[in-house]
């Protein structure tokens, strides 16, 4: 569905501030997949995802969406942005309108929908986002941080994108808020079969939800594989300043202690099943 071919991005090319965000990255993402994108700070994650809906132009290489080159001259980037939704880091800073509902209608209206249609979509996106109904008509600036975040995510959902890219949607929230946002994202895929690309710092979050994990390291694609396969490279991950999920470490410790479990487990559920199996509990 989305294919990146030999993407390279260099900031401020040709000046003293030149810095390379990433080089020669290629991958293909299929419809309906949940991709976790992970990497140390500064590894180029935010820069990379902004190429996928044409917000940034690559220095070299290109991106194909459903077989079409999105950086070709005649390509309709605005239409693409309706299909590939992007939730930026700290999206609450983009709220601007008088009421939450109006703000969420901004995207659909830009896509050329009528007021009524935009309203319908906005309401359904807001309900999906889990914001309570009595907040729909209040000013976005009167909401709490977590509520603002929901409203901002709804602002992208209301465009009903086929692909949703989220840059650390849970950053700066308390653990409860984190889980709620991540559950919301996971639900989206279940209910609407949206393709998801989730940027995160937390291996545990990514391990829990992603079908495949993309690991960026210093501007290069280090791994792009299923979680089990990626977490089998614990040492390499640690060298990149990342860590494996806590359950993977637990499995290692158990194995060392003589209790044999699958060393590549990554979520609490898997760990539970493996441990029960090891102790022969039915």
């Amino acid at each position, binding site marked *: 569905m989305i294919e990146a071919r030999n993407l390279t991005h260099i900031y401020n090319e040709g000046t003293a501030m030149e810095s390379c965000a990433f080089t020669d990255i290629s991958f293909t993402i299929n419809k309906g997949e949940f991709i976790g994108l992970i990497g140390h700070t500064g590894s180029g994650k935010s820069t990379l995802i902004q190429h996928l809906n044409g*917000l940034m132009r690559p220095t070299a290489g290109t991106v194909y969406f459903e077989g079409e080159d999105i950086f070709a001259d005649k390509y309709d980037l605005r239409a693409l942005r309706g299909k590939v*939704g992007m939730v930026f880091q700290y999206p609450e800073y983009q709220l601007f309108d008088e009421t939450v509902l109006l703000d969420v209608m*901004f*995207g659909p209206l830009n896509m050329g929908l009528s007021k009524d249609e935009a309203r319908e979509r906005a309401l359904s996106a807001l309900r999906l986002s889990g914001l309570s109904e009595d907040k729909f008509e209040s000013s976005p600036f009167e909401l709490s941080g977590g509520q603002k975040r929901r409203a901002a995510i709804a602002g992208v959902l209301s465009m009903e994108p086929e692909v949703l890219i989220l840059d650390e949607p849970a950053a700066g929230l308390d653990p409860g808020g984190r889980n709620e946002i991540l559950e919301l994202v996971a639900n989206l895929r279940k209910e609407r079969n949206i393709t998801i690309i989730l940027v995160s710092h937390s291996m545990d979050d990514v391990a829990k939800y992603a079908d495949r994990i993309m690991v960026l390291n210093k501007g290069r694609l280090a791994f792009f594989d299923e979680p089990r396969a990626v977490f089998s490279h614990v040492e390499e991950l640690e060298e990149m300043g990342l860590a494996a999920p806590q359950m993977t470490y637990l499995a290692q410790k158990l194995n060392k202690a003589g209790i044999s479990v699958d060393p590549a487990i990554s979520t609490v559920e898997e760990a539970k099943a493996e441990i029960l199996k090891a102790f022969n509990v039915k």
Partner: protein
Amino acid sequence: MLRDITLGQYYPVDSVIHRLDPRTKLAGTFVFLVSLFVTKSIYGYVLATVFLAAVIMMSRVPVKFITKGLKAIVVLLIISVSFNIFLTEGTPIFTLGPLKATWEGLQTAGFMGIRLIYLVVGSSILTLTTTPNQLTGGLEKSMGFLRKIKVPVHEIAMMMSIALRFIPILVEETDKIMKAQTARGADFETGGLVKKAKAMIPLLVPLFISAFRRASDLAMAMEARCYHGGAGRTKMKPLKYHKRDFIAYVILLLYLAAMIVIKK
């Protein structure tokens, strides 16, 4: 998208110009700007060009980077140049309806254009080679005598350094918000004036809110670290003149003298 604004930006390389004392550079910029208004002869402009070119070369800032800053004044430049061409009395070249272009006008317009360009380039060199901190340090020191007549020099300098420091931050912030709204289908480029102005609302509202938030955070952080204005404040790196500064001053004086001599 907005990274073309070079005014107030620092270009981090090491060069003689970068290493000069900020006071020297301030004086240099001042002298250069004054000299542009002193001279009325071709030779004066030639000398100014040579001087400017030499400084740019020594600063090791790429010319491409400096001229990028000129984009911001293109409109102003076109307006003032055409006003001069058409509104100066003298021998006509051609007429365009009620408008009459004259040779004298063309000449003044040419000088005017060069003056404007040099003005902008000259001052960008200052900011490109001096960090905002150095710059305000220099200003504070050079203007120190004003404190005797109760001008709050330190406070003004502090405000200036904060303002300068905030330019790139706000540019970056604008860029971010612009991208976020573009991702929601906003269109900042096409449409008439009214449509364009309307399109700015989703950009300006979040920008102002974030500017105010940053300002209040900064005030809080400064107070938390016991900032209470200029009295008794010492510098970590006090400004000190070196030999290169004296050489620079001598060159400056020679330049200014030459400009005054060939004034006509």
